[in-house]
């Protein structure tokens, strides 16, 4: 469905995206995560033909990025919700449906369906009167008026309250369930974790890791063993009336146990802790 190869984007002497390659299968939800300035937005904009790559190729639905046919098959949601305050959602969405050659009846049906699912009732009021969350819903509805196969969403829940965020997250999952291919970027790792089939972590314009969450956690995550003893041993930190030593393998646990026994003490407790996605993100993205 989407194939990206050797993608680069340079702005003067600054390289925003550097040799990024990935594939996204049909019906998959693919998340791009990374700190600010990692190159996520530039990658998404190149993906939907908004920005020309400095190098590399992008293919969406069999068409090059920017090709008019590719644009017809794609819905884009920018990070902000740039709307026209004086227009109502209905007239705004109809205009975009027109641009995509959607006939009037189908457009009306599609617009109503999208706004129903997003729970937006005010359809004939000027958008300028709307809250940020309501505007976001209109922007999401716009990305759907052409019934696209591919959706590219840049920070879809950015700056929204928890309730609206939840609505948007659930809606994104529903779109994937409907068979849409979704590529989006996010800062909120819980959002990513709850929606994405696969994730790519970007760092300084490059892909630092790609795969399912399980793959990434397996490859980049780790298990910590916290060994509690009643006597101080090397590298142990006081923890109340006990001493805590953190190690990363069972061999190390055995070594701590042996050292403690030689010191005349004993191991009181051993606890394990697996890395969360956030830990992995912090490690891999270098944040």
């Amino acid at each position, binding site marked *: 469905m989407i194939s990206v190869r050797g993608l680069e984007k340079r702005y003067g002497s600054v390289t925003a995206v550097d040799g990024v390659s990935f594939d996204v299968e049909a019906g998959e939800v693919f998340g791009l995560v990374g700190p600010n300035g990692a190159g996520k937005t530039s990658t998404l*904009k190149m993906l*939907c*033909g*908004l*920005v*020309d790559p400095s190098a590399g190729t992008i293919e969406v639905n069999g068409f090059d990025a920017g090709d*008019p*046919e590719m*644009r*017809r098959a*794609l819905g*884009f949601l*920018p990070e*902000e919700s*740039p*709307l*026209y305050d*004086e*227009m109502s959602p209905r*007239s705004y969405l109809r*205009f*975009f449906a*027109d*641009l*995509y050659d959607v006939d009037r009846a189908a457009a009306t049906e599609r617009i109503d369906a999208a706004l129903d699912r997003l729970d937006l009732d005010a359809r004939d009021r*000027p958008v300028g009167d709307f809250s940020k969350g309501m505007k976001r819903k209109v*922007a999401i509805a*716009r990305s759907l008026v052409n019934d696209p196969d591919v959706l590219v969403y840049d920070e879809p829940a950015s700056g929204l309250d928890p309730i609206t965020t939840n609505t948007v997250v659930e809606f994104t999952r529903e779109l994937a369930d409907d068979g849409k291919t979704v590529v989006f970027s996010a800062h909120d790792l819980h959002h990513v974790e709850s929606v994405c089939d696969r994730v790519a972590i970007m760092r300084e314009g490059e892909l630092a890791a790609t795969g399912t969450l399980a793959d990434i956690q397996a490859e980049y995550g780790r298990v910590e063993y916290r060994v509690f003893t009643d006597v101080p041993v090397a590298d142990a930190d006081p923890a109340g009336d006990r001493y805590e030593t953190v190690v990363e393998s069972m061999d190390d646990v055995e070594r701590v146990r042996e050292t403690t026994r030689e010191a005349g003490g004993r191991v009181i407790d051993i606890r394990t802790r697996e890395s969360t996605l956030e830990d992995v993100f912090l490690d891999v993205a270098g944040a």
Partner: protein
Amino acid sequence: MNPRSVLRIARWETTRSAGDVDRRTAVAFVVVLLVIAALVPALVTYGPTPGEGIYRVGVDDDDDYRGVVAAEATLAAVDRAPSGVRTGDADLLVGDGGFVWADSAKGRASLAALRSATVAFNDRRMAREDNQSAAFPVVVTLTYADQSVSVTGQQTGDDAGADAGDQAGDTGDQTGDGTSDGTDGGTDDGTAGTEQPDSERDDDGSEAVSDLPSAPEGGLGGLLGDQQTGTPSSLSPPFPLRSLILAFAFLLPLNVVIQAYGSSVLAERINRRGEPLLVAPVSPADIVAGKTLPYLAGALALIAGIAVLVGAGPLAVAAVAPLAALFLAATFLGAMLARSYKELTFVTVTISVTLTAYAFVPAVFAEVHPIASISPLTVVVDSITGEGTTAGAFVLSTVPPALAATVMFGLGTGVYREEDMFTQRPIPAKLLDALAAPLDSRLRVGLWTALFMPFVFVTELFAVAVLFVAPVELSVPLLLGTVALVEEIAKSLHVYAGFERGRFPRTLRTSLVLGALSGAGFFLGEKLLLLTQLVGLPGIEVAQFAFSPSVVGLPPGVLLVAPLVLHVVTAGISAVGAARGRLEYVLAVLLAVLVHVAYNVAVVVGVA
């Protein structure tokens, strides 16, 4: 470009823009427009005449000239005290001994005004005669003269004098020779001029005006000759003031339209509102055309409405249409470069002032001088006054603005993309982006140099319009320098932009190749200047230096090769500097200008 997409965007733009204005504001705007539309023609037609009663003429109540003075708004009859001119109570005295006028610009102008009024007075009287053949016998005067300003002025001044003399007073001296025998008429004390008529006073005691001194400011002689003073009414043929004011009405709505249009374009860039449109399956050209169409259509509708109100024909609308497009194109480019509404205001004001001056200043000479053919408003004036417009004059006044508008829209569309629209870069940097955007290959450098010709042409025409009244000793050097500077910038600025934006490697070889292509492109585009031949503009001395300095006095082989060599060499010099940086570019352009000026001077000397 997809017409369906363009129309959809145009319809949307209309709907959206309408939503921008609340109903009360819209109603108020329409009311104001209607009031202006109703008042302007009425004011021009029935309102006070500019300069009403400014010339005080001392004339007795029973004198035949009393009726002439009463019929002309700029003349006011006062008591004919013999000392009236000396005491300043009158500008001109009409008496038994002829005319006495103040030895001042106003005194001479009053004499010219009286003469014109007399001609008009007589014409009206003769028009009431039953025998029109006797009233208006056909007199043909053939005068062969160069199309130079001074010759034209002399000719019209003489003719006017003849006409005035032929039909003055009740009897009218129909055999008056119309010659002029004096212009100064100063007395020894230098306070007043007097003129004794050569012809006899008529039987009824009225004076024949055939011996009125030919006022020095009559015709272009006053405007361009030794006398630099004059008034509109002293020009012969008369200064078409009313028509000009009406023509100016065509420019007013354009200034309103560009405000709305510029705001709309900038609104797309504020808060990234235009971003979703860029992802839709429409091209930037579709978007630009669609957004522009309602404003262009609105401007044309207003122009057509004004044409109906002021009595101008379809040709006037056709002439102003490219000007409207140029207003919009310049605004579009400005709005694409501006970073805020504050900057946009500066841009639109600059555009208004510059283009209004370009359209209005040459039109001041409508019906007087070929320089007026530069301006589309001259076609409007001709349409209102019923004068014909030649095909050449129409082409000259409309094609350059139309081409300039096309190029400006092209440049603006080149930066109608995400990377340029939403960044807050300085205007010069974005201008370089716009110039560099189309340079996909080296050949395009030559192509775009040729496309810049309308700007060069418009600028040089404007320079000629501004400088042609100045003494040749001043205007020619200034014009040679201006022409060289404008042309060298046109040949090199985009080359510099190309280097700055990394379109070309900064090597000597590339610089020379780009310079050669740019020079060749300019040489070919320069042929556009042949348009000036259509209206005989090179007949103006100063224009000859601007547009065809090499036409005279050089062998045919040199004629063909010399300009090409010049443009290639100077463009090469600028390109070498452009490849090395900004300061080097500026210095290189200055060097190229010097070479260019030296070439022009050599040609001028050769011509001389």
